[in-house]
Protein backbone atom coordinates (compact mmCIF):
# COMPACT_ATOMS: atom_id res chain seq x y z
CA UNK A 1 0.00 0.00 0.00
CA UNK A 2 1.42 3.41 -0.94
CA UNK A 3 2.38 5.55 1.98
CA UNK A 4 0.66 8.87 2.26
CA UNK A 5 3.30 11.45 2.99
CA UNK A 6 2.60 14.63 4.74
CA UNK A 7 2.87 17.89 2.95
CA UNK A 8 6.41 18.32 4.15
CA UNK A 9 7.31 14.70 3.56
CA UNK A 10 7.90 13.94 7.24
CA UNK A 11 6.37 11.25 9.45
CA UNK A 12 5.23 13.84 11.95
CA UNK A 13 3.52 16.89 10.65
CA UNK A 14 3.99 20.04 12.60
CA UNK A 15 1.45 22.70 11.87
CA UNK A 16 2.30 26.20 12.76
CA UNK A 17 -0.40 28.45 13.99
CA UNK A 18 -0.36 32.14 14.48
CA UNK A 19 1.78 33.78 17.12
CA UNK A 20 4.32 30.94 17.17
CA UNK A 21 2.03 28.25 18.66
CA UNK A 22 2.54 24.81 17.14
CA UNK A 23 0.52 21.56 17.01
CA UNK A 24 2.02 18.15 16.44
CA UNK A 25 -0.40 15.91 14.44
CA UNK A 26 0.22 12.16 14.30
CA UNK A 27 0.82 10.49 10.97
CA UNK A 28 -2.30 8.64 9.89
CA UNK A 29 -0.55 6.37 7.39
CA UNK A 30 0.06 3.26 9.56
CA UNK A 31 -3.47 3.37 10.93
CA UNK A 32 -5.01 3.61 7.48
CA UNK A 33 -2.74 0.82 6.20
CA UNK A 34 -3.79 -1.40 9.07
CA UNK A 35 -7.46 -0.57 8.64
CA UNK A 36 -7.40 -1.36 4.93
CA UNK A 37 -5.69 -4.64 5.66
CA UNK A 38 -8.39 -5.52 8.18
CA UNK A 39 -11.10 -4.66 5.67
CA UNK A 40 -9.40 -6.75 3.01
CA UNK A 41 -9.23 -9.66 5.45
CA UNK A 42 -12.89 -9.47 6.40
CA UNK A 43 -13.96 -9.09 2.77
CA UNK A 44 -12.08 -12.26 1.89
CA UNK A 45 -13.44 -14.37 4.72
CA UNK A 46 -17.04 -13.18 4.58
CA UNK A 47 -19.40 -15.63 2.98
CA UNK A 48 -22.90 -14.47 2.21
CA UNK A 49 -23.88 -17.97 1.05
CA UNK A 50 -23.91 -18.98 4.68
CA UNK A 51 -26.87 -16.77 5.33
CA UNK A 52 -29.11 -19.84 5.24
CA UNK A 53 -27.17 -21.60 7.96
CA UNK A 54 -28.91 -21.39 11.24
CA UNK A 55 -26.65 -21.35 14.24
CA UNK A 56 -29.21 -23.39 16.13
CA UNK A 57 -28.38 -26.45 14.07
CA UNK A 58 -25.54 -28.55 15.41
CA UNK A 59 -24.58 -30.64 12.44
CA UNK A 60 -23.35 -34.21 12.94
CA UNK A 61 -19.67 -34.81 12.28
CA UNK A 62 -18.30 -36.85 9.44
CA UNK A 63 -14.76 -37.29 8.22
CA UNK A 64 -15.92 -38.32 4.75
CA UNK A 65 -18.37 -35.53 4.01
CA UNK A 66 -16.91 -33.41 1.26
CA UNK A 67 -18.03 -30.16 -0.32
CA UNK A 68 -19.68 -30.71 -3.70
CA UNK A 69 -17.42 -30.30 -6.73
CA UNK A 70 -19.73 -27.68 -8.17
CA UNK A 71 -22.62 -25.89 -6.53
CA UNK A 72 -25.99 -27.41 -7.40
CA UNK A 73 -27.95 -25.75 -10.16
CA UNK A 74 -30.97 -25.16 -7.98
CA UNK A 75 -30.67 -25.90 -4.30
CA UNK A 76 -33.25 -25.74 -1.57
CA UNK A 77 -31.85 -25.82 1.95
CA UNK A 78 -34.08 -27.34 4.58
CA UNK A 79 -32.94 -27.20 8.17
CA UNK A 80 -34.35 -29.44 10.86
CA UNK A 81 -33.89 -28.42 14.46
CA UNK A 82 -33.69 -30.80 17.41
CA UNK A 83 -37.24 -29.71 18.29
CA UNK A 84 -38.34 -31.13 14.91
CA UNK A 85 -39.07 -27.73 13.42
CA UNK A 86 -38.17 -26.93 9.84
CA UNK A 87 -36.32 -23.72 9.02
CA UNK A 88 -36.74 -22.70 5.42
CA UNK A 89 -36.55 -19.29 3.79
CA UNK A 90 -36.04 -17.58 7.13
CA UNK A 91 -39.24 -19.06 8.55
CA UNK A 92 -39.61 -21.73 11.16
CA UNK A 93 -42.58 -24.06 11.05
CA UNK A 94 -43.55 -27.64 11.90
CA UNK A 95 -42.98 -30.42 9.37
CA UNK A 96 -46.66 -30.53 8.39
CA UNK A 97 -46.27 -27.04 6.88
CA UNK A 98 -43.50 -28.18 4.55
CA UNK A 99 -45.54 -29.58 1.60
CA UNK A 100 -47.18 -26.23 0.90
CA UNK A 101 -43.85 -24.37 1.00
CA UNK A 102 -42.20 -26.92 -1.26
CA UNK A 103 -45.00 -26.68 -3.79
CA UNK A 104 -44.52 -22.91 -3.96
CA UNK A 105 -40.78 -23.41 -4.37
CA UNK A 106 -41.33 -25.98 -7.09
CA UNK A 107 -43.61 -23.57 -8.94
CA UNK A 108 -41.01 -20.80 -8.67
CA UNK A 109 -38.33 -23.14 -9.96
CA UNK A 110 -40.37 -24.19 -12.97
CA UNK A 111 -41.39 -20.63 -13.80
CA UNK A 112 -37.86 -19.23 -13.63
CA UNK A 113 -36.50 -21.75 -16.10
CA UNK A 114 -38.52 -23.82 -18.53
CA UNK A 115 -35.61 -26.18 -19.18
CA UNK A 116 -35.32 -27.14 -15.54
CA UNK A 117 -37.33 -29.99 -14.10
CA UNK A 118 -38.07 -30.83 -10.50
CA UNK A 119 -35.63 -33.72 -10.60
CA UNK A 120 -32.78 -31.28 -11.35
CA UNK A 121 -33.22 -29.53 -8.03
CA UNK A 122 -31.18 -30.54 -5.02
CA UNK A 123 -32.55 -30.59 -1.53
CA UNK A 124 -29.86 -29.85 1.03
CA UNK A 125 -30.83 -31.21 4.41
CA UNK A 126 -29.14 -29.67 7.41
CA UNK A 127 -30.51 -31.64 10.30
CA UNK A 128 -29.42 -31.29 13.90
CA UNK A 129 -27.39 -34.19 15.28
CA UNK A 130 -30.06 -34.70 17.95
CA UNK A 131 -33.01 -34.61 15.55
CA UNK A 132 -34.92 -37.84 15.19
CA UNK A 133 -34.03 -39.99 12.20
CA UNK A 134 -37.73 -40.58 11.57
CA UNK A 135 -38.32 -36.83 11.22
CA UNK A 136 -35.49 -36.54 8.70
CA UNK A 137 -37.04 -39.41 6.76
CA UNK A 138 -40.40 -37.67 6.91
CA UNK A 139 -38.86 -34.53 5.43
CA UNK A 140 -37.25 -36.63 2.68
CA UNK A 141 -40.54 -38.35 1.97
CA UNK A 142 -42.39 -35.04 1.67
CA UNK A 143 -39.74 -33.87 -0.79
CA UNK A 144 -40.08 -37.12 -2.75
CA UNK A 145 -43.85 -36.73 -2.86
CA UNK A 146 -43.35 -33.23 -4.28
CA UNK A 147 -41.13 -34.68 -7.00
CA UNK A 148 -37.63 -33.93 -5.72
CA UNK A 149 -35.09 -36.72 -6.13
CA UNK A 150 -31.65 -35.44 -5.29
CA UNK A 151 -30.67 -34.96 -1.69
CA UNK A 152 -27.54 -33.76 0.00
CA UNK A 153 -27.22 -34.68 3.64
CA UNK A 154 -25.01 -32.09 5.19
CA UNK A 155 -22.46 -32.80 7.89
CA UNK A 156 -19.66 -30.93 9.56
CA UNK A 157 -16.29 -31.93 8.26
CA UNK A 158 -14.14 -33.52 10.88
CA UNK A 159 -10.47 -34.38 10.84
CA UNK A 160 -10.03 -38.05 10.08
CA UNK A 161 -9.50 -40.40 12.98
CA UNK A 162 -7.59 -43.59 12.74
CA UNK A 163 -10.04 -46.17 11.51
CA UNK A 164 -9.82 -49.84 12.02
CA UNK A 165 -9.60 -51.54 8.69
Amino acid at each position, binding site marked *: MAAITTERGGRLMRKRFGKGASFAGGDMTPMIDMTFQLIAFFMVVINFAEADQSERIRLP*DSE*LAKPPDSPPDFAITLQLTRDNMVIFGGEEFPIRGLPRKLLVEKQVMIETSKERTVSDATIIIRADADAQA*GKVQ*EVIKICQDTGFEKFHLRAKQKA*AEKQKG
Partner: protein
Amino acid sequence: MKVRHVQRHGEEKIELQMTPMIDIVFLMLIFFIMTFKIASPEGDFSIKMPRHAPSEGLPDDSQLPPITVRMRADSEGRLKSIWMGQRGLGNSFDALRSEVRALIGDDRGPGSFADTAEVELDCDYQLKYEYVMRAITAISGYIDPDTGRVITVIEKIKFAPPRGE
Protein backbone atom coordinates in the same frame (compact mmCIF):
# COMPACT_ATOMS: atom_id res chain seq x y z
CA MET B 1 -13.94 21.59 4.57
CA LYS B 2 -11.01 22.34 2.34
CA VAL B 3 -7.86 23.81 3.73
CA ARG B 4 -6.08 25.97 1.25
CA HIS B 5 -2.42 26.65 1.45
CA VAL B 6 -1.16 29.55 -0.55
CA GLN B 7 2.35 28.75 -1.58
CA ARG B 8 5.14 31.16 -2.17
CA HIS B 9 4.79 31.46 -5.94
CA GLY B 10 1.12 32.26 -5.78
CA GLU B 11 -0.04 28.70 -6.70
CA GLU B 12 -2.97 27.32 -4.78
CA LYS B 13 -2.64 23.72 -3.51
CA ILE B 14 -5.69 21.76 -2.39
CA GLU B 15 -4.88 19.33 0.35
CA LEU B 16 -6.75 16.00 0.26
CA GLN B 17 -9.13 15.63 3.16
CA MET B 18 -8.73 12.25 4.79
CA THR B 19 -11.57 12.52 7.29
CA PRO B 20 -14.50 11.29 5.07
CA MET B 21 -12.44 8.40 3.77
CA ILE B 22 -11.46 7.32 7.25
CA ASP B 23 -15.08 7.61 8.34
CA ILE B 24 -16.22 5.31 5.56
CA VAL B 25 -13.36 2.90 6.09
CA PHE B 26 -14.18 2.57 9.78
CA LEU B 27 -17.85 2.07 9.00
CA MET B 28 -16.93 -0.73 6.61
CA LEU B 29 -14.63 -2.22 9.20
CA ILE B 30 -17.39 -2.20 11.81
CA PHE B 31 -19.80 -3.79 9.32
CA PHE B 32 -17.42 -6.61 8.51
CA ILE B 33 -16.55 -7.21 12.16
CA MET B 34 -20.22 -7.38 13.11
CA THR B 35 -21.12 -9.78 10.30
CA PHE B 36 -18.06 -11.96 10.72
CA LYS B 37 -18.83 -15.51 11.70
CA ILE B 38 -16.36 -18.30 12.07
CA ALA B 39 -17.92 -21.06 10.00
CA SER B 40 -16.72 -24.60 10.24
CA PRO B 41 -16.33 -26.36 6.90
CA GLU B 42 -19.27 -28.46 5.85
CA GLY B 43 -19.61 -31.34 3.44
CA ASP B 44 -22.36 -33.35 1.86
CA PHE B 45 -23.37 -36.92 1.27
CA SER B 46 -25.18 -37.07 -1.99
CA ILE B 47 -28.05 -39.51 -2.24
CA LYS B 48 -30.54 -39.98 -5.01
CA MET B 49 -33.91 -41.21 -3.88
CA PRO B 50 -36.68 -40.93 -6.44
CA ARG B 51 -40.15 -41.84 -5.34
CA HIS B 52 -41.11 -45.24 -6.68
CA ALA B 53 -44.24 -45.08 -8.72
CA PRO B 54 -46.74 -47.82 -7.92
CA SER B 55 -46.83 -48.79 -11.59
CA GLU B 56 -43.20 -49.86 -11.56
CA GLY B 57 -44.20 -53.33 -10.47
CA LEU B 58 -41.64 -55.92 -9.51
CA PRO B 59 -37.98 -54.98 -9.67
CA ASP B 60 -35.78 -56.25 -12.44
CA ASP B 61 -34.30 -59.72 -11.77
CA SER B 62 -30.80 -58.50 -12.61
CA GLN B 63 -31.03 -55.88 -9.90
CA LEU B 64 -29.69 -57.13 -6.59
CA PRO B 65 -31.77 -56.46 -3.50
CA PRO B 66 -30.30 -53.75 -1.30
CA ILE B 67 -28.14 -54.60 1.69
CA THR B 68 -30.27 -53.77 4.68
CA VAL B 69 -28.70 -52.08 7.66
CA ARG B 70 -31.07 -51.98 10.59
CA MET B 71 -30.37 -49.59 13.43
CA ARG B 72 -32.25 -49.94 16.68
CA ALA B 73 -32.48 -47.23 19.29
CA ASP B 74 -33.33 -47.07 22.95
CA SER B 75 -36.09 -44.83 24.26
CA GLU B 76 -33.67 -41.88 24.49
CA GLY B 77 -32.67 -42.15 20.84
CA ARG B 78 -29.23 -43.59 21.48
CA LEU B 79 -28.00 -46.40 19.30
CA LYS B 80 -28.69 -49.83 20.77
CA SER B 81 -27.65 -52.19 18.01
CA ILE B 82 -26.76 -52.41 14.35
CA TRP B 83 -27.81 -55.32 12.21
CA MET B 84 -26.62 -56.00 8.70
CA GLY B 85 -29.10 -58.44 7.29
CA GLN B 86 -29.42 -61.05 10.04
CA ARG B 87 -26.01 -60.40 11.48
CA GLY B 88 -25.72 -58.39 14.67
CA LEU B 89 -22.80 -55.97 14.87
CA GLY B 90 -23.30 -54.59 18.35
CA ASN B 91 -23.21 -50.82 18.25
CA SER B 92 -19.84 -50.44 16.59
CA PHE B 93 -19.55 -48.46 13.39
CA ASP B 94 -16.06 -49.87 12.84
CA ALA B 95 -17.63 -53.34 12.74
CA LEU B 96 -20.18 -52.06 10.22
CA ARG B 97 -17.42 -50.60 8.06
CA SER B 98 -15.41 -53.83 8.20
CA GLU B 99 -18.48 -55.90 7.38
CA VAL B 100 -19.38 -53.75 4.38
CA ARG B 101 -15.80 -53.82 3.12
CA ALA B 102 -15.62 -57.60 3.52
CA LEU B 103 -18.88 -57.98 1.62
CA ILE B 104 -17.99 -55.61 -1.21
CA GLY B 105 -14.38 -56.69 -1.69
CA ASP B 106 -11.66 -54.66 -3.32
CA ASP B 107 -12.98 -54.60 -6.87
CA ARG B 108 -14.00 -51.00 -7.56
CA GLY B 109 -14.32 -51.03 -11.33
CA PRO B 110 -17.41 -50.14 -13.33
CA GLY B 111 -19.99 -52.90 -13.18
CA SER B 112 -18.41 -54.37 -10.05
CA PHE B 113 -20.44 -55.27 -7.01
CA ALA B 114 -19.21 -52.08 -5.30
CA ASP B 115 -20.55 -50.09 -8.23
CA THR B 116 -24.01 -51.64 -8.22
CA ALA B 117 -24.53 -52.46 -4.54
CA GLU B 118 -27.04 -50.43 -2.67
CA VAL B 119 -27.57 -50.07 1.07
CA GLU B 120 -30.93 -49.42 2.63
CA LEU B 121 -30.89 -47.83 6.06
CA ASP B 122 -33.73 -48.91 8.25
CA CYS B 123 -33.67 -46.85 11.44
CA ASP B 124 -35.90 -46.62 14.45
CA TYR B 125 -37.95 -43.45 14.39
CA GLN B 126 -36.47 -41.96 17.55
CA LEU B 127 -32.83 -42.72 16.66
CA LYS B 128 -30.72 -39.60 16.74
CA TYR B 129 -29.69 -38.37 13.31
CA GLU B 130 -26.07 -38.27 14.46
CA TYR B 131 -26.00 -42.10 14.38
CA VAL B 132 -27.51 -42.15 10.91
CA MET B 133 -24.72 -39.89 9.70
CA ARG B 134 -22.12 -42.10 11.35
CA ALA B 135 -23.62 -45.14 9.66
CA ILE B 136 -23.60 -43.39 6.28
CA THR B 137 -19.95 -42.46 6.87
CA ALA B 138 -19.06 -46.07 7.76
CA ILE B 139 -20.90 -47.47 4.75
CA SER B 140 -19.78 -44.98 2.15
CA GLY B 141 -16.06 -45.42 2.58
CA TYR B 142 -12.93 -45.08 4.60
CA ILE B 143 -9.69 -43.15 4.64
CA ASP B 144 -6.70 -45.07 3.46
CA PRO B 145 -4.23 -44.95 6.38
CA ASP B 146 -1.23 -44.98 4.01
CA THR B 147 -2.23 -42.36 1.50
CA GLY B 148 -4.84 -40.42 3.49
CA ARG B 149 -7.19 -40.57 0.50
CA VAL B 150 -10.89 -41.32 0.77
CA ILE B 151 -11.74 -44.74 -0.66
CA THR B 152 -15.38 -44.99 -1.61
CA VAL B 153 -17.02 -48.31 -0.83
CA ILE B 154 -20.72 -47.81 -1.50
CA GLU B 155 -22.22 -44.75 -3.10
CA LYS B 156 -25.83 -45.79 -3.36
CA ILE B 157 -27.50 -45.31 -0.03
CA LYS B 158 -31.20 -44.97 0.55
CA PHE B 159 -33.64 -44.98 3.42
CA ALA B 160 -36.29 -47.56 4.10
CA PRO B 161 -39.78 -46.12 4.59
CA PRO B 162 -39.94 -44.40 7.98
CA ARG B 163 -41.06 -46.55 10.88
CA GLY B 164 -43.95 -45.49 13.05
CA GLU B 165 -43.34 -43.08 15.89
